[in-house]
């Protein structure tokens, strides 16, 4: 293939990647978009394989087959509730792949046309070592994020004395090692850089609480995008540059959206020590003080909703944990059959990753045109008879509007309290992810439905039937 043709092929694959993201602007075009993305990837790989320097295909085919099979099996088997940890796990693989590419380039720079072993061009060695470092950080950071999300290690922030100082020292060492590498490219320095980068990725993430992991994953995603763009500069490959910029923007924007949805700054998230097991340890009953929360049974809820003309469903993290989406849709089907208007209200940070609730509801066969974003539906609570809050908590907490000293102050909130009756399905009065007590539990028009989200909803279905 001529150089020019190669260039056009890479451009085509970049354009297809852009189209893949563009498709996601609506569920109708999204599937076509994903197909564009696949074609783009096939073109990128095919073009590289046609490169004259690529002459031996056994290992490549082996890698594609082994990796492809593993990826396919994982993707087909995975539960939708486990999406956050899946993304983290996949993410660590990209990081590790970047590390391997970095090592490969260090030992065989001729394959990339960036110099010879021990004498790589200055620009390239800088880009290469930065790529290695960011890849390693992405890898170890994502591994910790995965372990915390999967429950393999405690979600609690792990903090110790002089933590920030230790991190600063390691970071300084990394910078020095990169500079040293420019001077003389010894293997020792190179491997030290790799090891320290793995270490700092680990150390940066352990103090961050389990529930903050999605922000961290997204941020690491953004970093790895910029790193890919950097490698694109080394290889003079516009496809890598464009894709890197796309991924970089995506990660940065998603982190921003999550932080804004929680009304926290990214620095606040990264400094850690927030959002540990409080959410996970929801089973323990909280201090109810001397306020009184009315408890109700499934039959009460069924009666209330049957006689309502409009019910708004507010799903949250608890619905995901309980896998209640199918039961929920069944309940809504019965209500709709009885002439009740049903809509779903999704808070931007409901659940544990952006868009998490939407995917789960879609899995439960809820049509996406019944599902609304906060701004679209918030004014409708005033005209709703019942708000059915299932496993959500912080995202409905009016303290965010009333108490400026609260950790969730300023966070946008679903105005469920404006509905005629608020039904809270949760196992106890314990707070949600942010650890802030919810005064709505003790409100006059609130009825608590204690129990697992799925079981309770199934009971309501029976009571309705």
């Amino acid at each position, binding site marked *: 293939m001529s150089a020019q043709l190669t260039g056009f092929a890479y451009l085509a694959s970049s354009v297809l990647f852009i189209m893949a993201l563009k498709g996601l602007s609506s569920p109708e075009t999204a599937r076509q978009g994903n197909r564009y993305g696949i074609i783009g990837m096939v073109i990128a790989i095919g073009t590289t394989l046609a490169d004259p320097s690529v002459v031996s295909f056994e290992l490549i085919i082996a*890698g594609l087959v082994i*990796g492809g099979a*593993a990826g396919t099996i994982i993707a087909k088997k995975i539960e939708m509730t486990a999406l956050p940890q899946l993304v983290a796990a996949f993410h660590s693989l*990209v990081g590790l792949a970047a590390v391997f590419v970095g090592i490969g380039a260090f030992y065989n720079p001729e394959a990339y046309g960036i110099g010879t072993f021990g004498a790589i061009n200055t620009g390239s060695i800088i880009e290469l070592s930065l790529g290695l470092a960011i890849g390693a950080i992405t890898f170890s950071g994502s591994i910790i994020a995965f372990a915390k999300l999967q429950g393999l290690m405690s979600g609690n922030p792990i903090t110790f004395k002089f933590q920030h100082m230790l991190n600063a020292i390691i970071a300084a060492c990394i910078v020095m090692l990169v500079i040293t590498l420019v001077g003389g490219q010894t293997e020792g320095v190179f491997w030290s850089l790799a090891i320290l980068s793995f270490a700092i990725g680990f150390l940066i993430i352990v103090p961050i609480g389990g529930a903050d992991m999605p922000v961290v994953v997204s941020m690491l995603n953004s970093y790895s995008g910029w790193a890919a763009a950097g490698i694109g500069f080394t290889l003079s490959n516009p496809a890598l540059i464009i894709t890197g910029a796309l991924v970089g923007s995506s990660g940065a924007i998603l982190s921003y959206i999550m932080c804004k949805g929680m009304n926290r700054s990214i620095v606040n998230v990264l400094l850690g020590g927030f959002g540990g097991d409080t959410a996970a340890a929801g089973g323990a009953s909280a201090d109810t003080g001397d306020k009184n929360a009315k408890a109700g049974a499934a039959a009460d809820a069924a009666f209330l909703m049957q006689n309502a003309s409009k019910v708004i469903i507010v799903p949250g993290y608890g619905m995901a944990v309980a896998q209640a989406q199918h039961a929920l849709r069944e309940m809504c089907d019965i209500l709709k059959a009885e002439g009740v208007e049903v809509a779903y209200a999704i808070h931007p940070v409901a659940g544990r*990753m952006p868009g998490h609730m939407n995917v789960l509801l879609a899995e439960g066969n809820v049509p996406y045109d019944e599902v609304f974003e906060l701004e679209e539906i918030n004014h409708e609570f005033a005209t709703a008879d019942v708000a059915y809050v299932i496993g959500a908590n912080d995202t409905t907490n009016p303290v965010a509007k009333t108490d400026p000293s609260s950790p969730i102050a300023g966070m946008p909130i679903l105005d469920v309290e404006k509905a005629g009756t608020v039904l809270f399905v949760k196992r106890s009065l314990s707070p949600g992810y942010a650890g802030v007590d919810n005064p709505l539990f003790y409100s006059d028009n609130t009825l608590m439905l204690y129990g697992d989200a799925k079981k309770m909803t199934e009971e309501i279905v029976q009571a309705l039937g």
Partner: protein
Amino acid sequence: MNSAAIQEQSATLATNAAKLAEEVEKLAQDASQLIDVQTAAATMDFLSLFTIFVLACFVGFYVVWSVTPALHSPLMAVTNAISSVIIVGGLLAAGPADMDFSKVMGFCAVTLASVNIFGGFIVTQRMLGMFKKKK
């Protein structure tokens, strides 16, 4: 060969040599000019790449903000998949004929990136397949 003829011949040779030297000089000049041009082209190249990068950032900004919030999870999965275009680096490392350490690294990179590519696109397709409109 008489001395006059020889002298003449040597004079011709000398002129020819001088001409050749001149030509060499000219060629050297041309060559160095070409090198200049080439260097200019090379800087233009970094500039093009940088321009492409800047524009791609704008495109990324707009295209990601235009994603509907309901599809933010598929967005994370699909960016995961496309960021594995780094497989290009792995292919180049695994491509040469001789087996060495670097080739093994390339193989590892290709394998890991493939997990991601297949896994990312398939899980995205699975998610998107679930989004249905009201009948």
